[in-house]
């Protein structure tokens, strides 16, 4: 298989429904680490709703208080760097955030997000999107609409597609009894 083969974005069928329209932006900078998303002292919690109460605690306290179902996080480079804690995307799910847009993602966070049902969207122009604005994600045609402007998004890597199609890795794996190894 070719190294950078990707599929058209329109194949993404993660069930986001109307949640991709008029999403309010919570803007963050570069290198947002998973300690910031959910600090270490809350990692005994595994429930998304409880985790959400402490999302960005200490670095952006208003987030947990004011975030609403269907809001979107827009970050800069290397979003989700650091610890492999899956509590980070789970805290976002608990907060009602199902989409994270960033210029680039740290590897483990990207994979964890897809696995648990948060859609990570790579947008090279993410830094141009302002805090508090309302944006619409057009997955089918591959762009983000922010007011008058449109910003292209990158296609999802093809190997993640099956997992996204299934609605996360748990759903993907549920009906499999065994996995053939050393095959794609």
């Amino acid at each position, binding site marked *: *298989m*070719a*190294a*950078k083969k990707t599929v058209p974005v329109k194949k993404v069928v993660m069930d986001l429904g109307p949640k991709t329209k008029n999403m309010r932006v919570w803007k963050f900078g570069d*290198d947002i*680490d998973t*300690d*910031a998303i959910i*600090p*270490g*002292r*809350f*990692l*005994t*919690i*595994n429930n998304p709703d409880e985790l959400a109460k402490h999302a960005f605690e*200490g*670095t952006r306290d208003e987030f947990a208080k004011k975030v609403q179902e269907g809001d979107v996080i827009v970050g800069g*480079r*290397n979003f989700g*760097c*650091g*610890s*492999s*804690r*899956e*509590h980070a995307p*789970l805290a976002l799910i608990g907060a009602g955030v199902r989409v994270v847009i960033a210029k*680039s993602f*740290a*590897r*483990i966070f990207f*994979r*964890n997000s897809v*696995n*648990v049902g948060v859609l990570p969207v790579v947008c090279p122009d993410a830094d141009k999107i302002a805090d508090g604005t309302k944006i619409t994600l057009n997955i089918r045609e591959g762009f983000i609409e922010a007011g008058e402007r449109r910003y292209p998004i990158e296609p999802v*890597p*093809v*190997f993640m597609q099956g997992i996204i199609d299934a609605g*996360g*890795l*748990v759903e993907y*794996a*549920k*009906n*499999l009894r*065994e*996995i*053939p*190894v*050393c*095959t*794609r």
Partner: protein
Amino acid sequence: MAATIVEKIFSRKCGKDIRAGEVVMAPLDGAMIHDITGPLAIQKFYEMGGKKVYDPERIIMLFDHQIPADSIEAASNHVYMRKFAEEQGIHNYDINEGVCHQVTIEKGRAAPGEIVVGADSHTCMYGATGAFATGIGSTDMGFALKFGALYFKVPETIRAEVSGKFQKRVGAKDLILSIAADIGADGATYKAIQFTGKTISKMDMAGRMTLCNMAIEMGAKAGIVAPDKVTWEYMKGRRKIKPFELDSDPGAKFAETRSYNVSDLEPTVAVPHNVDTGVPVSKVAGTHVDQVFIGSCTNGRFEDLEEAAEVLGKKKFNPKIRVIIIPASRDEYLRTLKAGLIEKFVKAGALVEAPCCGPCMGGAFGLIAPGEVSLSTSNRNFKGRQGSTDGKVYLCSPATAAASAITGEITDPREV
């Protein structure tokens, strides 16, 4: 066709040529779960319909982040995991052995040419043994527990060629902090970093572990050192495995090669609040510190504590600051104890704790208050990593930490 060490590991496992960029469902030689990400992994295993793990012999469980249990929630998580280990026949080191990565390597659970995963980002440390090892999330771990395999996009490799001889009191931690500053916090995302060159050949396993441990701080999927005499010597008594050749071919295609000469390298300190901010110690010398932590999977080995003790000499730690020293494992604790260093540290004014992650994870003990400064030999200095988000964490070597613990401010260890 010439291949990198990482391509060779995947090719050996699968019995066919595999190259960077390919996606493979690769069989796993080992998997490690601990008390923070483990409960979720087990939950996911069950949610996936898991009943029996693929192979209990290949799984290792231990608790290190919150031990002895520091809350009822932590205690309950431990109980949940113990039950799973018993039910599945998984070996559980429980709270007894120390920090997961150190223990995994010590117990011979990662070896040259193997593919090992851990539900912790610093799993990349096992690359010091010549294994391909990477950190994964809990859902991926649930999948790994069920199937004994996982999807990998085989990474390209950055070759970090290191030459020169370290000055006294300068070592692997200073090197990796300076490499992180050079490559950047996301400069190696989706890639592996192979550490190679004369300096690495001469480096002991402790130093190689420090290097590979921090590959993730550049976004890397893995850090790796090709197995050599030092590696095979270390494997003796830990793993019955016959030495074999495993290294990148001379003509292998690397993402890039970066060369480093350590001869002029100064003690290096990463300043708040990112890891890729390393500067020569002289730039931050004199900065007041409130707490010094010497330990963690990055720098809690006997060699690290021995160097700290050498710097300490007959001096005392500054009584105005808190000095916390934690050997990374029971084995390292015993080596330190037998060498008389524990007594030396305690007499000098340090708290020496039983093997665990300690202040590094910022959730158990040793937290810092708003406005406080921690100097730490661990691997992350993110805002709030060791307590208050209004505190600051600087990262350094054991030598710099010990020197600074004597003076109470960041200090060049060559001057103590």
